[in-house]
């Protein structure tokens, strides 16, 4: 029986890991579209993201154990098939509950595929250390590229296309792995390789969870701010948030220069917090001002995630189980970050929107335009607020058509700009407390990093 050659097999495994871990963030830029299409709330749509990460967090270690028991190749192939099937269901879902259920099933298949891949890679590349590096790089690349790919697909096709495209990619990755699974079933080689599971590295995994919570918040909140707050298109937001993975590449070059994993982890956590602090204190609604904080977060996440993953896996066997623990910690962190911060910023965004609309209305009331024009504007603003159930990020259409009289026209344009400025202020300010709390989470990760001498491996 033929087994897939190592190179296609490694490529397939890396693709599988990248695809699954991209799925934890790929929908971030599609959330505003899903939010509108499925007519849900911000808290509701957040569960499209939370459900996947929650199931990944809960299922990663059991999936690793299962993969070792039934054979990792078989587990990876089945996991990818489940992932593909659930992806199809996600793409066809027309209700939020269906989408969330399908996302949970996707995460189950994904957890099986990712942990099994870590068990399969050493045999394909010849060393456990190299296998870990490929696995971690594929995961980080997937997670970093996810939002941009998701944003582009949402803009060019639809949010559904993100999931539908995953189906052929997952099946293509499963084909070479399936050949290994057949070989594995015929020879039963895995049963002899079961080893005792060592204790997970608690400090590194706790720190991973806390930093992941802060990073997830950074990505999720920034995307919502760009699209819902500042009205960028998904593709525009995708381009803006690409700064973070680009900075992460820069950060990955810094890593080898500093051998101390603890120093890299601490510096990374500080940079992530500093970047989030900058996002919490944006002095104006301007995309360019998000770039320096993103650079800090990007460099920081690259340093801290690689240092902590390296620490959690270093010298521990079996790799799949400890890899499962890191996956579990990271996704649990994402869930905690989203669950802790979503209620805060949804309450803030509602309050800030009301304040912004009131501030804009005050500008209209205090202006010297004709009272009849004021009533007309107030009527249109009220109608627009009612029509959009208060979910407005722009009130520009309420000012159309502009008056034909040049003086009135200029006055109305001035009022429109002032009202929009108030909305921008409201949207930006609404995210500040959440970014600030995420920054605090990143700083708190310094405690497990600092307390653990074993981080310096």
């Amino acid at each position, binding site marked *: 029986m033929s087994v897939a050659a190592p190179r296609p097999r490694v490529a397939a495994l890396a693709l599988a890991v990248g695809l699954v871990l991209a799925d934890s963030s790929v929908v971030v830029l599609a959330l505003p579209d899903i939010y509108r299409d499925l007519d849900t709330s911000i808290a509701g749509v957040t569960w499209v993201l939370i459900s996947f990460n929650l199931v990944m967090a809960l299922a990663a270690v059991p999936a690793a154990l299962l993969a070792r028991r039934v054979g990792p190749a078989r587990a990876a192939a089945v996991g990818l098939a489940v992932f593909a099937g659930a992806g199809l269901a996600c793409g066809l879902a027309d209700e939020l509950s269906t989408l969330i259920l399908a996302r949970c099933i996707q995460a189950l298949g994904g957890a099986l595929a990712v942990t099994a891949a870590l068990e399969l890679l050493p045999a394909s590349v010849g060393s456990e250390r190299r296998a870990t590096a490929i696995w971690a790089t594929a995961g980080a690349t997937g997670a970093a590229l996810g939002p941009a790919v998701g944003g582009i697909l949402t803009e060019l096709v639809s949010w559904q296309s993100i999931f539908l495209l995953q189906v052929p990619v997952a099946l293509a990755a499963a084909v070479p792995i399936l050949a290994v699974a057949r070989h594995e079933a015929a020879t039963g080689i895995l049963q002899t390789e079961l080893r005792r599971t060592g204790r997970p590295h608690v400090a590194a995994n706790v720190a991973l969870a806390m930093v992941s919570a802060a990073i997830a918040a950074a990505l999720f909140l920034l995307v919502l701010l760009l699209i819902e707050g500042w009205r960028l298109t998904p593709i525009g937001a995708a381009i803006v948030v690409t700064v973070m993975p680009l900075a992460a590449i820069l950060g990955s070059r810094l890593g080898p220069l500093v051998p101390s994993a603890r120093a890299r982890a601490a510096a990374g956590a500080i940079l992530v917090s500093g970047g989030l602090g900058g996002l*919490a204190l944006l002095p104006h*609604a301007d995309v360019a001002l998000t770039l320096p904080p993103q650079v800090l977060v990007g460099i920081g996440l690259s340093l801290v995630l690689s240092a902590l993953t390296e620490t959690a896996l270093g010298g521990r066997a079996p790799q799949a189980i400890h890899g499962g623990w890191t996956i579990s910690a990271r996704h649990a962190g994402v869930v905690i970050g989203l669950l802790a911060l979503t209620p805060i910023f949804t309450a803030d965004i509602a309050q800030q929107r009301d304040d912004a609309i009131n501030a804009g209305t005050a500008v209209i009331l205090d202006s010297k335009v004709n009272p009849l024009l004021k009533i007309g504007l107030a009527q249109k603003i009220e109608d627009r607020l009612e029509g959009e159930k208060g979910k407005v990020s722009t009130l520009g259409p309420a000012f159309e058509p502009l008056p034909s009289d040049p003086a009135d026209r200029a006055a109305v344009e001035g009022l429109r700009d002032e009202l929009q400025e108030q909305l921008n202020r409201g949207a930006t300010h609404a995210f500040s407390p959440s970014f600030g709390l995420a920054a605090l989470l990143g700083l708190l990760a310094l405690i497990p990093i600092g307390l653990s001498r074993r981080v310096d491996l």
Partner: protein
Amino acid sequence: MNAKLRGRLLVGAAVVASLALVGVYLAAGGSSYAPEKSQDPCKHRPWSNPEGLQEIANQFSISALDGAACQLGVTRETLARALATPEGRERFKERYGIDDAKLARAIRAGLLRAVSDAEEAGALSPLIAGPLRGTIEEIPLDRAIELVNDASSALGGFEGLLGPATNLLEEFLP
């Protein structure tokens, strides 16, 4: 350079970069970039040298909205949007549990405050203010809302409201 020193340098650089970013954004006003807060409608809002009928009408409307909003415990902006359309008014009444009688009382109170403010600012003669107050006490809700929304046309054509004082209006407006 030894490994320990490189580690310390990396951590130090991270601290400096983070503090620099936060410091620059704070200095640029990052802590105060928020919507302007609505003013308390119960607080007196002085009139600023009103000149001409339209400007007086504008300030009259604002004073009236402030007075009514103060009575109802809402912002004047919320009330202004609610009074702009009949549907908005119904939604507002439902949301805040207000009936027509309570709304009418609040708007009349607002209009009376506007008359006093106008009088205090020297924009309305006491000769007009007196009968105007009497009219406001009796004014139906719809007319009261019209007066709040568009005081200029009402002040410009007070036949129905002022009775014998009508012809004196333009004379007594500055």
